[in-house]
């Protein structure tokens, strides 16, 4: 049985809306180690004092890295889109909701509480409500980096910010991978991680009777949370086969804590009468303006639906997802080298001490490959030690449970487990057979599977980029985050049966020069002639 370790951890993804102060429109602000600069400081003017380290993302990895580095004497700025630290994994209700037991929605709260205590004691400048859109080499300070951010809960306050630092730790987490199926755009179909996020942060459910479907260990955690919060969960529909774990006993047995956690989820699901249906998928959502029922079909080993096996389940919501995708825009924009992971996503190629291929840029947590919160803590801590050593010109040091040697050994064990899990839940090559030609694949631009197949079969598209140029799939607001994996698969299938049957198609790398939509006004505020923000990146559409 799996665990919930990959339950949407990481911190860089845009996150909870709470407690972000309403900022009066200003030209912008720069921050230094002494705290916020004068509100009137002109954005784009001479940079103020610089930090030793800018950490992007306040999930488990970013928090661990920021606190560790700060405790070793570095000045640290911690930027995060959310109003509260924790990232996606430790999302929790805003204080205004008055929750006396936020830990009731978490299995590993004490580790987070301990980190928050260290954060409170450390002199970390926590910049909440900061949506980082690019990181560039400082144009006028060799060896330093400029981190550019939009501000506000929605990232659209007229007050961009910039932090300069000698080193950057990317802890931007992950977002959920989606595979389309007929009806998945109906209101009431929500991401499994999304349902979890809305529940954890705002105590809201998408419906009263929620089917949970897709693939990966997150599904069990989501189903357990929804049931505990009062929703009926008629079924958890898992496309892979949990027997796959039996074929990888080594990696599993090395992680008794994770097995115990899986047992907790399993027991909770039993208690709530939730049925787990493996090697099955939702192949149709029914309803005109919102979800009324789903059809669940059996899958063969390739994830092709078995004809005639469909069974209808009444529900008013469907929570769906297929694992997580590392959030790499900032790293890819900096030129960091990536690698393919066992389940077909891209992750950063990292050195033994968490440094990317770009000296001075480090990464921890899901950015280096999805692996869960314990791995994120471990890598964040290791990165904090390594960055402090580099900037202070000393050897990497740490004692006892925090010695580099112990951390690296723990990291290797957790990575092996994560890879075993990813292999079990990797999408099978036959999933596109769920689609009919009318199924929308790109939700933003409303591009159907039929149009993508036409681009591939009739116009010769062989990759996601060409499909995008021909059909606009992946060109909308989300910049292909929701449809990218699917479009890449559909394009690759044209490369012949052998290629399509093979391990994984080539997904498009996460090239998004602007990590979040930036308004022209924010770009115009970058008024230096040499300012990096005015050079290569272009504003998104609309």
């Amino acid at each position, binding site marked *: 049985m799996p665990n919930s370790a990959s339950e*949407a951890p990481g911190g860089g*993804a*845009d*996150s*909870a*809306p*709470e*407690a*972000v102060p309403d900022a009066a429109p200003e030209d912008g602000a720069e921050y230094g180690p002494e705290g916020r600069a004068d509100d009137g400081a002109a954005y784009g003017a001479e940079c103020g004092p610089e930090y030793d380290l800018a950490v992007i993302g306040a999930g488990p990895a970013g928090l661990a890295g920021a606190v560790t580095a700060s405790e070793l004497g570095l000045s640290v700025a911690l930027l995060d*889109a959310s109003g509260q630290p924790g990232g*996606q994994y430790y999302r929790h*209700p*805003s204080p*205004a*909701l*008055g*929750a*006396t*037991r*936020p830990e*009731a*929605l978490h299995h590993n709260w004490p580790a987070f509480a301990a980190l928050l205590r260290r954060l409170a004691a450390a002199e970390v400048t926590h910049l909440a409500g900061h949506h980082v859109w690019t990181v560039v080499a400082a144009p006028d300070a060799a060896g330093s980096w400029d981190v550019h951010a939009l501000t506000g*809960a*929605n990232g*659209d306050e007229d007050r961009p910010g910039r932090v300069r630092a000698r080193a950057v730790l990317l802890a931007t987490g992950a*977002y959920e991978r989606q595979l389309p199926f007929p009806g998945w*755009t109906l*209101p*009431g*179909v929500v*991401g499994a*991680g*999304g*349902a979890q*996020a*809305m529940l954890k*942060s*705002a*105590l*809201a*459910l*998408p419906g009263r009777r929620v089917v949970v479907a897709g693939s990966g260990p997150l599904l069990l955690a989501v189903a357990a949370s929804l049931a*505990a*919060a*009062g929703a*009926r969960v008629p079924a958890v529909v898992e496309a892979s086969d949990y027997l796959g774990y039996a074929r990888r006993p080594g990696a599993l047995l090395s992680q008794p804590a994770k097995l115990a956690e899986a047992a907790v989820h399993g027991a909770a699901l039993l208690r*709530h*009468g939730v049925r787990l249906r493996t090697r099955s998928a939702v192949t149709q959502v029914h309803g005109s*303006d*919102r979800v009324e029922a789903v059809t669940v079909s059996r899958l063969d080993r390739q994830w092709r639906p078995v004809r005639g096996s469909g069974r209808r389940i009444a529900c008013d*919501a469907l929570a769906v997802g297929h694992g997580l995708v590392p959030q790499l825009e900032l790293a890819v924009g900096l030129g960091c080298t990536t690698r393919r992971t066992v389940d077909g996503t891209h992750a950063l190629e990292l050195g033994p001490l968490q440094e990317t291929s770009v000296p001075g840029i480090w990464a921890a947590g899901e950015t280096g490959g999805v692996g869960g919160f314990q791995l994120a803590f471990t890598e964040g801590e290791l990165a904090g030690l390594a960055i402090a050593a580099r900037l202070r010109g000393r050897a990497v040091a740490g004692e006892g449970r925090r010695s580099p040697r112990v951390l690296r050994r723990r990291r290797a064990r957790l990575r092996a487990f994560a890879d075993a899990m990813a292999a079990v839940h990797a999408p099978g090559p036959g999933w596109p057979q769920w689609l009919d030609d009318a199924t929308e694949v790109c*939700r*933003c*631009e*409303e591009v159907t599977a039929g149009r993508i197949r036409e681009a591939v079969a009739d116009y010769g598209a062989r990759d996601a980029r060409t499909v995008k140029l021909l059909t606009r799939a992946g060109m909308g*607001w*989300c910049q292909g*985050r*929701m449809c990218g994996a699917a479009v890449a698969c559909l394009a690759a299938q044209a490369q012949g049966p052998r290629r399509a049957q093979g391990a994984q198609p080539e997904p498009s790398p996460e090239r998004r020069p602007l990590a979040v939509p930036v308004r022209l006004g924010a770009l115009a505020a970058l008024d230096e002639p040499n300012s990096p923000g005015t050079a290569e990146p272009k504003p998104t559409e*609309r």
Partner: protein
Amino acid sequence: MARDRSPAALVGAATDDAFEITFDGRPVTALPGQSVAAALWAAGILAWRSTRVGGRPRGAFCGIGQCYDCLATVNGRPNRRACLLPARPGDAITTQEGHGHAELGV
């Protein structure tokens, strides 16, 4: 199965400060600290946008600000992510038609 279980009961949340927002003119109760999307979900509302091409209803999908499906017009300003935006007393949420800039005539 217990009928009285709720997310608020699970985490021991209690607030007396519920306030009102409106959705297409009708009142909706919101709690302090809730996003606009969460308040609408709690009221059983799942869609607050119609798509540019097909005019199809959409609401929150990814829940973490990544998919932009939950764009809403809030107090007259379009294209705001309802899953990120905190609800504030008196907010007027309106269904966003298409790109939300009909006044531009594009």
